């Protein structure tokens, strides 16, 4: 097996161990306001970070291309309360259209 395969398996194992961890926390601790606050802040920050990385970066460079159109299209769809699937399709379509018309790379 290649080195990458071992890292894949290791990451899978770690992911399951983390999921399992939550179920072993005593119920008393679960209601802690500190836990609630850290969890909700972390989730928002992680998702915002993922949006940024996916929309504006290529390797270690910041780039502006068709994906910013995808982000805008998705946000418009979300603003009008479109279902999740429609939001994802709007992002894909915007990227395809911007590239097909030569408006963005």
């Amino acid at each position, binding site marked *: 097996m290649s080195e990458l395969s071992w*890292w894949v398996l290791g990451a899978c194992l770690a992911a399951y161990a983390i999921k399992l961890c939550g179920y072993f926390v005593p119920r008393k601790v679960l*209601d802690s306001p*500190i836990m609630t606050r850290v969890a909700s802040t972390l989730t*928002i920050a992680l998702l*915002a970070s993922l949006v940024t990385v996916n929309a504006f970066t290529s390797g*270690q460079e910041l780039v502006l291309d068709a994906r910013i159109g995808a982000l805008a299209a998705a946000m418009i769809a979300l603003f009008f309360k479109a279902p999740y699937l429609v939001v994802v399709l709007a992002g894909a379509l915007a990227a395809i259209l911007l590239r097909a018309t030569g408006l963005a790379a």
Partner: protein
Amino acid sequence: MARFLTPATKMGLSISIATGLYGISFGALSIAAGLDLWQTAALSALMFTGGSQFAFIGVISGGGAASAAFSAATLLGVRNAVYGMQIKQALRPLGKQVPWMAQVTIDESTAVSLGQAKISEKRRGFVTAGAGVYVLWNLFTLAGALLGEQMGDPAAWGLDGAAVAAFIGLLWPRLKSMQPVLIAVAAAVLTALAVPISAPGLPILITAVCAAIYALCTVRKAPAATEHGGLHSVGEEQT
């Protein structure tokens, strides 16, 4: 059938289809990132948490080390531990159910479950969304991985645009007041600043650590900010 289709199972099924289809994007991008079919299938069947899977292949496709991919994926998966706690509290599962419930504890199953009022509906929502996403996500990952080899550049199919839309779609429902919006904007700016000066995958980790520190600091400074009604149980703990 009519009894099976409750509001919770309908919501679970629609999110299963929406998220499952998106597995095509993961499968194709994973192959494009340089992973083989088995590695791609293993990530969906065993890791089974979309954000972490995308982070893993994102670091690899950006030329990052496998160890950096491992770290990014693992750190992104930490929120599943939090979901596990919430599900344990809400569904009160039996010990023997925990092994499989843990595996399907993800954004979608947790969101659908916690969105219901009655405990029976919470359970139905969790099982429908968890099992539904698992089956479809894995099937469409395979489809994307197999088609992706013929499709060439996923960007030509707008799949990179779909990825951006999918993440903003997960973030959006959480931006209901000013504070989460500010946290999201700060995290985005911090990530953008970190990208040119750190290895691929690291900007997400840096942002996560800063967010956790920020959350801890503001809890100490302003305990009144716990609007989720946790003060009562803190009182219980201290007694």
